[in-house]
């Protein structure tokens, strides 16, 4: 049973001088609890597709269903979205940042403190609730952004290159934390990345897109023995480099 269903998505951007087709006839299904990645050359529309799934804007044609419900703008609590940078609000404390989603959805305020506390403990930052974002390092801030996304208990997580602005060490640590946390909460997730290694290490399936216009080129299944491992351990596994080579060659062939 598919959890996220993308059906014949077409999308074009219009500017004063031209109309540019960015996505052509994209259809894909993702199972509940599955972690998948979108990779592809720049301009393949993977971030656009993610925004459409998030309901940030509507596609020119086609439909997206999450858990049988059609996505539209202003859908609440269906999706959690993580951006390339943390975009924590500098004028709010960490706790207020984590609970901002709950506040927006006007859920009962009594439980906010408890939720924030539990989530901060989960991401390994139990004592920063009263601090301000500028007092935290980049990696810590992105962890708080993860907590903020999880606070509203979304049905699906959309990760738009959330590790790309981090240093390598923080990135590896955060990858492990994200996979571990999502497994614990049994969340479905879509990761957009330009890093093949990251896609292999974190996901169960990798969707490769080609550019101009963006089309779904190929889907790679990651072997089940790798899916069991943490992203860090996947990178050390002998099977890792074979898959890397396969995807790399395919990506190269797209030009």
């Amino acid at each position, binding site marked *: 049973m598919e959890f996220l269903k993308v059906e014949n998505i077409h999308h074009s951007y219009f500017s004063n001088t031209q109309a540019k087709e960015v996505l052509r006839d994209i259809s894909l299904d993702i199972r509940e609890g599955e972690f998948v990645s979108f990779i592809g050359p720049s301009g393949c529309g993977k971030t656009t597709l993610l925004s459409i799934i998030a309901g*940030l804007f509507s596609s020119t044609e086609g439909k997206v269903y999450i858990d049988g419900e059609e996505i539209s703008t202003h*859908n*609440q609590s269906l999706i*959690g*979205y993580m951006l390339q940078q943390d*975009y924590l*609000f*500098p004028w709010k404390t960490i706790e207020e940042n984590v609970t*901002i989603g709950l506040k927006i959805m006007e859920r009962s305020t009594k439980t906010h403190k408890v939720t924030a506390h539990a989530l901060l403990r989960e991401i390994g930052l139990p004592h920063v609730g009263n601090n301000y974002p500028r007092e935290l390092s980049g990696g810590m801030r992105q962890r708080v952004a993860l907590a903020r996304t999880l606070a509203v208990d979304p049905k699906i997580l959309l990760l738009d290159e959330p590790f790309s602005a981090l240093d390598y060490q923080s990135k590896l640590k955060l990858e492990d934390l994200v996979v571990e946390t999502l497994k614990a909460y049994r969340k479905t997730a879509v990761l957009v990345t330009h890093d093949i290694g990251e896609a292999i290490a974190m996901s169960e399936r990798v969707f490769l897109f080609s550019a101009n216009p963006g089309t779904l080129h190929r889907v790679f299944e990651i072997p089940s023995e790798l899916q069991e491992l943490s992203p860090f351990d996947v990178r050390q596994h002998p099977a890792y480099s074979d898959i890397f080579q396969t995807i790399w060659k395919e990506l190269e062939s797209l030009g």
Partner: protein
Amino acid sequence: MDNTLFKQYQQMLKKEKRYVRLYQLIILLVFFCGWELLSRFGWIDRLIFSSPTNVWHTLVEKVSDGTLTLHVGVTLMETIIGFIAGTLIGTLIAIVLWWSPMLSKILDPYLVILNAMPKVALGPILIVALGPGYFSIVAMGALISIIITTIVVYTAFKGVDPNYSKVLQTFGATRWQIFREVILPASFPTIISTLKVNVGLSWVGVIVGEFLVASKGLGYLIIYGFQVFNFNLVLMSLLIIAFFATIMYQVVELIEKAIVKNNG
């Protein structure tokens, strides 16, 4: 070792600060002493440029007969009300423009014209329309800062990183929620800095308004002193204006420090 270096550094800072204060004080003393001496020895016309002692005598006289408090009170009241009204109305218009991009496109050229227009030139019309009284003076004080506030604050609203709004959009936030949680707090530093500009502008508006119509206030004292050729009175009023304008500016700066602290 590090500790002694640090102490040296701190002492150096202290010393520098003391020098700055010293020179500031020297400038003040040189100004007033120079003014007094130049006027005593007749190098400048006593009748026109007065002298600190004469100004002081006038001040004492006006304070003791109770008229000065009235004039200062009236002008301060007008300026503060004009300042607050100008800033609030300007910000409200900016909010309306942000709310409706269509409206902001339509109004854009009119904002440019209104901004370029010297507002004090509207003085006579205001007085005719609103009557010669406090109301039209306050209106001057407000009018002079409304449009520039609108333009600066609206630009700040538009300059907020759209990714912050995107975060809230993914939670299904309404436009009003995005405004309240992101746009407004992110623009606070800009709004505060327009406050600083508006302090100065409101004084201009109110003083010009008083020139035109008032029978009370510091602007009136200046014009009256000019007409009866009592420049002691004119210079005293000027110094009082400088004093209170500085205090208002400092108050705004204190508010800024309190609000902007966590916005970095």
